[in-house]
């Protein structure tokens, strides 16, 4: 799905909405609008995802993450990497981006592979994007394949309804992280591995349920947002798992 700079006046106010700076009356009107505007709903979900990702990434260089620290503890040769020093109020920084910027930022986030995304984003701020960039909402066929309950719609209907939330780059990043976990599973404590895999299954089940809900109600802004958020949780957990395995290698 491609999002172009829209003329819908609400799109320019989504950042304000996400930042909680909108007057209650405007907020209510926007939420009413979101219920009937899939484009804005998708943009909102992407915006939340991008802002969350940006906030999560700006404060740390790769070596400043908790889990590489754990990895260092068991590495043969302890290393100390330089530590990023974020501004004291980094978490309050407001990302005041236009929709095209957000769209491209989402693309940047999604496009970075498992092996490079943290390094790249930690070293440079979100770049000003080219107008008209693609901003897909992520989805995972792998997650869909793990659906355990019968879907309310036919597979064809599900495919059609969710076609606009499929993102091959996200899938690729997930696949790479899953591969990293598979490659390194022998280096993890079996109990920890079991816990990680159980929790990944839990998230996959939640993703499957959310995807079916979106398929049944494609215009539902909150469902789309919930799906995107849940998918991000999977990436976060896979990242943790990959770092644990890599650190012991």
């Amino acid at each position, binding site marked *: 799905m491609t999002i172009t700079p829209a003329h819908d006046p609400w799109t320019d106010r989504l950042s304000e909405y996400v930042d*909680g700076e909108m007057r*209650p009356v405007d*907020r*209510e009107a926007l*939420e009413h609008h979101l*219920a009937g505007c899939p484009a804005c709903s998708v943009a909102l979900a992407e915006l939340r995802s991008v802002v969350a990702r940006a906030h999560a990434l700006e404060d740390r260089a790769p070596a400043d993450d*908790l*889990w590489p*620290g*754990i990895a*260092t*503890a*068991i590495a*043969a040769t*302890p290393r*100390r990497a330089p530590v990023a020093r974020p501004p004291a109020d980094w*978490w*309050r920084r407001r990302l005041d981006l236009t929709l095209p910027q957000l769209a491209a930022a989402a693309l940047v986030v999604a496009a970075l592979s498992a092996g490079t995304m943290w390094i790249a984003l930690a070293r440079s701020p979100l770049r000003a994007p080219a107008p008209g960039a693609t901003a897909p909402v992520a989805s995972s066929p792998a997650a869909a394949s793990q659906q355990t309950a019968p879907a309310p719609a036919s597979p064809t209907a599900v495919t059609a309804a969710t076609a606009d939330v499929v993102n091959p780059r996200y899938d690729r990043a997930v696949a790479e992280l899953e591969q990293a976990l598979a490659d390194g599973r022998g280096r993890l*404590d079996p*109990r*920890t591995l079991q*816990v*990680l895999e*159980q*929790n990944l299954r*839990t*998230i996959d089940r*939640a993703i499957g*349920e*959310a995807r079916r*809900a979106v398929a049944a109600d494609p215009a*539902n802004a*909150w*469902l789309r947002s*919930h799906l995107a*958020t*849940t998918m991000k*949780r999977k990436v976060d*957990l896979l990242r*943790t798992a990959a770092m*644990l395995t890599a650190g012991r290698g």
Partner: protein
Amino acid sequence: MIAMLAVLTAAVFSTATHTDTTFVARSGARLEINNFGGDIAVETWTRNAVRVEADHGARVGVVVDADAGVVEVRATTRLGVPTTVDFRLTVPRGMSLKLTTIHGDIDVKGVEGDVEASSVQGDVSVGGPARSVKAGSVEGDASVSGARGKVEVSSVNADASAEHVAGPISISSVNGDVTLSAVESDDVEASTINGEVRYEGAIRDRGSYRFSSHDGGITVAIPDRAGAAVSVSTFSGGFSSAFPIPWSGARRSNQFSFTLGNGGARIELESFQGEIRLQRPGTGKDRMKERDAEKSKAKHRAKTHDDGDDESDEGNRP
């Protein structure tokens, strides 16, 4: 001699199974421990010095490496085999800490600096007026209390909790409950996939409070005079309130919003298939305590069982 330890690397190899050393800490220095196995417990004192006590195997050394504002304490063996050491540290109150362990608990009390603490298999607990806290565990509980600044708490497969905290809070679990109590923050984000979310604390004007779960319920205590624009979203869950809701305008059965008082704060309540409940502060506490006590007992039983299954002479887990 003590001062020299602050600027030079000091390796303390011994044949004893207990290390106890104290060295001067440079003002502003951060202390780091990357432990493989074993607990880390930290307390504070008024001295500008760090005391390291460690229980370990006979062939294990404790190394103190002070360099460029970072004091690193680590266990080492002659063959480089990962080992288990229980550390007890006493540090200046203002010191910042970065603590990690794989197999072990972390317990920090009274530190006023920045605290990062993570474990893979153990519980992590940070209590006291820390400037900021980042506490996380994969398999164990993560809890923070009393922090003054930003707080991040996360667990993958257990509970995450925060109490008596005032700064921005981000707290999450995947397969566990998330509990916030006596919170004085104006920026709260709490989420879990398969668990309950519970909140009791201030609802401040212009504050932002976001609570979400996929499978579990959400229970939020709203003070009598709180003003908030509240949005409720669920797919197949329910909604209930212990007090009258001032409905206005059209609403869908599973997604709606309403305004309490002046609408100054923003509260988002989202559960895919759990019950969303609003109540007044103080109600339901007994039930929460009972539930927490039950979970604590179950966890204790599981831990006792694990310890019984996991006895080894040196406690090493290569």
